[in-house]
């Protein structure tokens, strides 16, 4: 069964991916690969990962997110995570999981503002 891929949008010089469905491990790993490939193709300076629709972030997903940030960082892309739900934030803290090297923002609007601050105006070269 082909699981639908997570759409990755481009806004100016940034990529935006919004996770809508409950990701099981295989889909999550494929999402990471898609993402990194897209970053490579577009040379995007910033990536927003929107987790508004995610209701559970366990240690696997947290690690995956950290990996995405680290790998994207190596390619010169800044990653901002937006839309973490309060109950997810609390659970992550209690699990003892640290999201290293990851900037977080409340929502898409603030995420883009944060990217602009960190990366500069996202205009195509």
């Amino acid at each position, binding site marked *: 069964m082909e699981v639908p891929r997570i759409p990755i949008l481009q806004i100016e010089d940034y990529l935006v991916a919004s996770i809508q469905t409950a990701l099981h491990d295989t889909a999550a790993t494929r999402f990471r690969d898609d993402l990194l490939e897209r970053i490579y193709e577009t040379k995007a300076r910033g990536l927003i990962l929107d987790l508004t629709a995610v209701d559970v972030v366990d240690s696997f997903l947290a690690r995956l997110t950290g990996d995405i940030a680290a790998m994207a960082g190596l390619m010169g892309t800044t990653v901002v995570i937006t839309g973490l739900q*309060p109950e997810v*934030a*609390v659970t*992550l*803290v*209690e699990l003892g999981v640290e999201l290293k090297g990851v900037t*977080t*923002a*409340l929502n898409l609007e*603030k995420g883009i503002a944060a990217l602009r601050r960190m990366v500069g105006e996202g205009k195509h070269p």
Partner: protein
Amino acid sequence: MTEKTDLEQYQEFVKERLKSLLDVVQSVSAGDFSVRVEIPAEADEFTALSVGLEKMIEDLIEARRVSEERMARLQAAVEEKERLLKTVGELSSPVIQVWEDVLVMPLVGAIDSARATRIMEDLLNGIIKYQAEIVIIDITGVPVVDTSVANHLVQTIKAAALLGARCVVVGISSEVAQSLVNLGVDLSGVVTRSNLQAGVRYAMEMMGLEVVPKKRVSS
């Protein structure tokens, strides 16, 4: 048929009276106050004892009644206190927006585990509601901060950070500071300032804002 001698008759009389008194004593010590001492019309050697015992039982009943009344009053007082505490709890973790993106959360009074959880929820919900990026947590009014509350606070601050909001804790008294250090609580990631004013100044700095006097128009 042998008639009983006077002595035997007396022995029986004593046994009977003693038994009836003993029955009453046993009932009362088992908690049954319904039995009463029988005081025969004709006074005998046991009358004084019977009367004394009856009085004692009456006193016991009265004492028990008073005690139950007190218990009921205490119970009512406890329930009232709990109602009041609940109200105080609801009133006492408000989240106030003092500026765009800046919240203040003044905490007053002792904080237990249940309240610490409520504070965390109110703070996180406040960040979402006001889209805040800075939260000033003012604990000037909190007399004691123990390990568990300190840890709750640290976790709250970490969770707030995941929502994109920075927290600054102000109003740590010298007693609280001492106990936190003595308890070995790790507050390394926590930004603190001395008071609310300093906290607001920090918030302004973080937001890149400056307060300047208005230009006076000279006539």
